């Protein structure tokens, strides 16, 4: 039976910032409702289900010092449960010194500028509660970006649970102010429902599951009513050491006495009852009843023993393992299946092994996780992530406005929804990432972790004249080889790496095969034995064991085995086989266990045992001295054992830019540039040259099928913006006029106005097959009404915000505008980055 917190030894602190002193922060009236309604529900009932007086301390619209002081006080006093709840504004800050992102909880006296100097960081909160002697700790955050808190990975001493309301990079709906905010309202609903349902105690994990159902319900309702900005809330949970089992609804009511006093009170009652029994004239009948009770008592040990036996049997029985789905490329499916067949939590360190035992139930030797590995070509996978809603809800009807387009059957045609993705290159993961940040996305991709490297090679059918096997450039090897064949770069990361290095138009047309595995299978006896551009791992089945089943048996296969040799171009970036955790938004029921299982799998692959298994299948791992080494089991004649470190892995934007030039994927686009021409951007301390070069290169990426327009803000007179150029083709004349529009104008910048005009321009000039792009170049737009600006944009358009400031993407308005967009700031080479982004954004 789940243990209830002790009321006297627990501390509940409910913090709500409903009103703010700085006008830059909008008041949140719903927060006040949050505190008063939660007070009665959190630990609000005793073990008999009776309401008990609330022991929660409410902190309404506190300042920073008061907030910190009360948190410290509660942490210091708690011995059983410490529960801290915060509702108010959240803020993300990117620290460019170490490239870390921190979540801040904004107190009522925090200014709008330099928020991080006044607000309470999650790290501070986490460290403070960690120092508490409380046996169990629960943090509940109802604020924007609260999901960022889950990135803080720290071991906890006792049971810990963190429950959040929003995704890491998203703000959330505040509600209408009449009643609690949406997340807290759902929390209240869940608490009450669980409590009323057979008097069930609400534990953290059950609450999280219920919250997930309610979030889905809210999302469906919002879609049905076509709300323009239903930025939905989404519950997240991290728990450690049994934190999911912490009870939040019931508490043991405080007694007046400590344990010895209570025992003495029981003894007094027993003695009193005995004397009254002796005075009773019906005592013989009562004595007979007592005998019956005694017989029952005698049978208790047997009952308990039997029950204990059943319990042992149940504890010994293993639950069905948690099923993980791991997606990779077709050529890696078989070897990675063999690698992951060796996955064993016993290879991990002690803490991770202990955590693994929280998955499922049963004996400690039970198999907790089952892994299924499957493969799909990279282009199909990227497309599937871009249409994650179709992938995750295959039962949805097709869009009626596209009757000519068949319904996507991604589950059937690509494969299961992955829990982890192992692309051959992290650049492929980045291709999919921007789409997964859009509002409609149902999936989140974690950060790729490299687990192996695979060189991209030229598999030569016979020795190449006058070249070495290593140290030569790709161009030199191609000249020596003459005709070569490769797969499509959309799905073959090796072909992409070769193509990027050689440059557009330098390689022959790719074979009509989707990937390296299919390229291999296209070889046939009787035909020529071509030189191949592919990855070293994909070459293995041609020259090693096990052979590719698709290649015809017999002497021909043996000939191929002896014929091919790998040449290693020194300037082609190696492929970094990466581990990417994948989280699906509606997978709430076992989210804690599933994410833990994925993390364990990733830790195993990145560790020693995983490394050995990968090397046994021909993948390369860093070894002593930093050299890449091939596994000793393999025949080294076709391969080179030790390779110098060489090039770093492929840059994702470079890869995407090359892909756009060869695949012709980008359809016609209508691009509206909204340029901030205020003094802070173009004045003496501004970035005129950077903005000019960015605009020039951005227009330079447009093709004859594209159109662009330019709006400037502020404008002369009292106009909030001016239309410098209407939608039209990217001619030299129009490009020059666009650059001329970069003239400083003094005035306030209210981006919502030109962004609304941009939406109208795109609507008025709508072409059926053209994608809409909005490019906003500004510094921080701090006077902008971000919500109004977002509301003015069209769902179907892609918005790219470019800040000329270092760390500009961290500024509040820019962050708000990038909810459904990507963002660039001056921390990187902006003109080149902008051009690369534009090549791949807004694909028709």
């Amino acid at each position: 039976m789940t243990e209830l917190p002790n009321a006297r030894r627990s501390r509940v602190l409910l913090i709500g910032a409903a009103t703010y002193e700085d006008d830059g922060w909008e008041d949140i009236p719903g927060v006040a409702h949050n505190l008063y309604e939660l007070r009665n529900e959190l630990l609000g009932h005793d073990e008999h289900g009776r309401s008990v007086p609330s022991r929660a301390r409410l902190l309404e619209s506190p300042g920073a010092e008061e907030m910190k002081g009360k948190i410290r006080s509660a942490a210091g006093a708690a011995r059983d449960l410490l529960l801290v709840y915060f509702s108010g504004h959240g803020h993300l800050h990117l620290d460019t010194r170490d490239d870390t992102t921190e979540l801040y909880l904004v107190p009522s006296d925090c200014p709008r500028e330099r928020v991080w100097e006044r607000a309470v960081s999650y790290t501070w909160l986490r460290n403070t509660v960690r120092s508490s002697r409380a046996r169990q700790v629960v943090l509940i955050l109802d604020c924007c970006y609260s999901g960022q808190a889950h990135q803080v990975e720290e071991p906890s001493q006792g049971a810990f649970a963190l429950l959040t309301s929003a995704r890491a990079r998203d703000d959330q709906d505040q509600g209408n102010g009449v009643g609690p905010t949406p997340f807290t309202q759902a929390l209240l609903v869940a608490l009450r429902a669980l409590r009323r349902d057979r008097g069930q105690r609400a534990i953290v994990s059950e609450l999280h599951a219920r919250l997930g159902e309610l979030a889905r319900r809210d999302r469906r309702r919002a879609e049905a009513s076509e709300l323009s900005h239903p930025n939905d809330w989404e519950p997240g949970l991290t728990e450690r050491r049994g934190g999911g089992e912490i009870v939040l609804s019931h508490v043991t009511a405080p007694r007046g006495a400590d344990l010895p006093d209570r025992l003495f009170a029981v003894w007094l009652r027993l003695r009193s009852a005995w004397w009254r029994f002796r005075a009773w004239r019906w005592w013989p009948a009562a004595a007979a009843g007592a005998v019956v009770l005694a017989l029952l008592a005698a049978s208790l040990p047997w009952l308990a023993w039997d029950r204990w036996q059943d319990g042992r049997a149940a504890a010994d029985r293993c639950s069905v393992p948690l099923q993980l789905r791991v997606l990779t490329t077709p050529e890696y499916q078989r070897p990675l299946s063999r690698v992951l067949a060796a996955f064993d939590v016993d290879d991990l360190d002690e803490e991770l092994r202990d955590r693994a035992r929280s998955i499922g139930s049963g004996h400690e030797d039970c198999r907790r996780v089952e892994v299924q590995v499957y493969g799909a070509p990279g282009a199909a996978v990227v497309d599937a992530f871009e249409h994650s809603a179709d992938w995750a809800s295959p039962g949805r009807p097709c869009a009626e406005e596209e009757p000519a387009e068949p319904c996507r059957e991604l589950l059937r045609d690509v494969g299961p929804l992955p829990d982890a993705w192992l692309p051959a290159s992290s650049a492929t993961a980045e291709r999919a990432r921007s789409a997964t940040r859009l509002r409609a996305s149902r999936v989140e991709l974690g950060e790729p972790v490299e687990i192996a490297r695979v060189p991209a090679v030229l598999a030569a059918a016979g020795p190449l004249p006058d070249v070495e096997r290593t140290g030569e450039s790709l161009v030199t090897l191609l000249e020596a080889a003459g005709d070569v064949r490769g797969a499509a770069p959309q799905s073959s990361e090796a072909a992409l790496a070769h193509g990027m290095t050689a440059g557009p138009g330098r390689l022959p047309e790719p074979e009509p095969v989707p990937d390296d595995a299919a390229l291999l299978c296209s070889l046939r006896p009787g035909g020529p034995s071509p030189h191949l551009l592919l990855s070293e791992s994909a070459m293995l089945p041609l020259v090693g064991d096990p052979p590719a089943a698709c290649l015809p048996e017999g002497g021909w296969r043996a000939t191929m085995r002896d014929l091919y040799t790998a040449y290693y171009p020194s300037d082609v970036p190696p492929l970094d086989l990466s581990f990417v955790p994948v989280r699906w938004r509606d997978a709430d029921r076992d989210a804690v266990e599933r994410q833990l299982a994925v993390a364990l799998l990733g830790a195993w692959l990145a560790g020693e045992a995983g490394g050995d298994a990968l090397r046994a299948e021909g993948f390369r791992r860093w070894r002593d001295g930093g050299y890449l080494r091939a596994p000793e089991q393999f025949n080294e004649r076709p391969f080179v054992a030790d390779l110098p470190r060489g090039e770093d892995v492929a840059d994702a934007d470079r890869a995407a830019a090359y892909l756009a030039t060869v695949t012709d994927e980008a359809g016609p686009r209508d691009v509206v540039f909204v340029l901030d021409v205020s003094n802070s951007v173009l004045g003496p301390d501004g970035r005129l040259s950077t903005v000019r070069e960015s605009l020039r290169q951005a227009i330079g990426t447009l093709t004859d099928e594209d159109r662009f327009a330019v709006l400037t803000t502020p404008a002369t007179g009292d106009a909030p913006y001016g239309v410098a150029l209407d939608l039209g083709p990217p001619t030299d004349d129009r490009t020059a006029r666009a650059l001329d529009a970069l003239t400083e104008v003094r005035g306030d910048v209210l981006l919502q106005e030109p962004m609304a005009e941009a939406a109208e321009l795109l609507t008025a000039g709508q072409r059926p097959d053209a994608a809409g792009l909005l490019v906003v170049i500004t510094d921080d737009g701090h006077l902008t009404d971000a919500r109004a600006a977002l509301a003015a944009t069209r769902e179907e358009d892609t918005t790219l915000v470019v800040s000329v400031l270092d760390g500009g993407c961290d500024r509040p308005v820019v962050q708000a505008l990038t909810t459904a967009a990507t963002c660039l700031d001056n921390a990187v080479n902006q003109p080149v980055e902008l051009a690369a982004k534009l090549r791949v954004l807004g694909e028709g």
Partner: protein
Amino acid sequence: MRRGVPTAACALLLATACVAGGGSPPPITPGPTPPDDVPLVVVSALDLSSPDQSGVRQSLIDEWNEESPIKARLVELPSTDGDARAEVLAGLQSGAAEYDVLNLDITWIPEFVEAGLLRPLDEERFGALDFVADIEETGRWDDELYAVPFTTDVGLLYYRRDLTETVDLGADSLPEMYTGRPGGQSKPTYVTQLRPYEGLTVNVMEALWRAVPDARLVDDSGAYVGTTALLEAGLEELLAITDESHLAAASYGADESGTLEEFAGEDRGTALMRNWPFALNRVADRLVAEGVQFGVTRLPGPAALGGQNLAVAADSPRAEAAQELIRFLAGEPGSQERMLAAGFAPALAEAYQLPDGVGEIACEDGLRVETPEDPDPVSGRSEEAGEEPLWRPDPRAYATLLWCAVHEARGRPATPYYRQFSRVIEEEVTRLLAGGAGSAGGVEEAAQRIDGRLELALRGRTYQPSRSSLSPH
């Protein structure tokens, strides 16, 4: 006086209550009921009966939608067995999947039940249905009905008459059939599914049953009861079947569709093929057009029983409607007869339309269905728009063959850890086959490893091979 009720008695009762009480994992509760215009979602593996996926399952769903106020939508899963199972299981475990009716392989039922993912069915609604053989038992677990047979399946032996003139199709085993045909020919004798997936496990079990007809690896409680001697016998039989002078090498990378390509594909051909009933029409469409005659008969020795059952997801908010749909799909003779016409083996006995009942069917030796010398186009039946099939089997003859094959078939082990059981077989037998056939040491070592690993796997324990066994086999 009420307060004087002896505290000891209260303590006793409380203790009894605690002892008598039990605990079990919290059941999955259904989500909120969607509006009526949201269709029931039926999830199923790819329908191999039709290469363009316009198969019989979809046509049955279409028929339901014409009559029912609550519509249904078919969602197809990945084509490979392992991927399909992983998706349905993980989708339901995580709560991301919103399925109502699940079309599950019969070997998956115990696992899904133990995971709490299936809702018990209403016995009264389905109890009167008469299924062929004992296949309704495949839908039961712990004496409760969780799934109803939709199709059954059984391994069959297909043969090309142009390549089997000297082959004794009535021989007791495949190696005996080989003796009628010289080895090493350009068109091999036999093709089957030996890729590392469930198809390989099926072949291994069939080899085991041929070698030891009453062999069991798992008892009724799910415990492992095999022995190394038993396993050695089965592996020896498998090695004899995979004699490289007779076996098509493509078998090592083939699934059901790949096998069919080897048997009937252009510029290919094998004399014999092991496959399921779905392959009949597809083989006919290929070979008859080329003037090649073929036939189908029972496998020598017990064949594996397959099939798919229909179940209701535990979290489906429309369980009643889902059961009605299942009743339509599985319980209507018309629906089942269409399965037979599409090549599947129906689950409902009535769909076979055989006279005289179970006890009267003569399952003779040599029971076969063959293409005639000059097959006439089947009038009034078209599989694809504008095309009529060149040949379809006589319904009664084919139904009789299937009936007999199903009744003689054997089920694979019923255990919640069936996936783990199959994985051990796949890994170890693949290793054995790659290491070179005919080595006594190889068979003995493989049998010992399988024996040790299965004992662990069938108790749900970890069963990884030792590090030394990791090799690029």
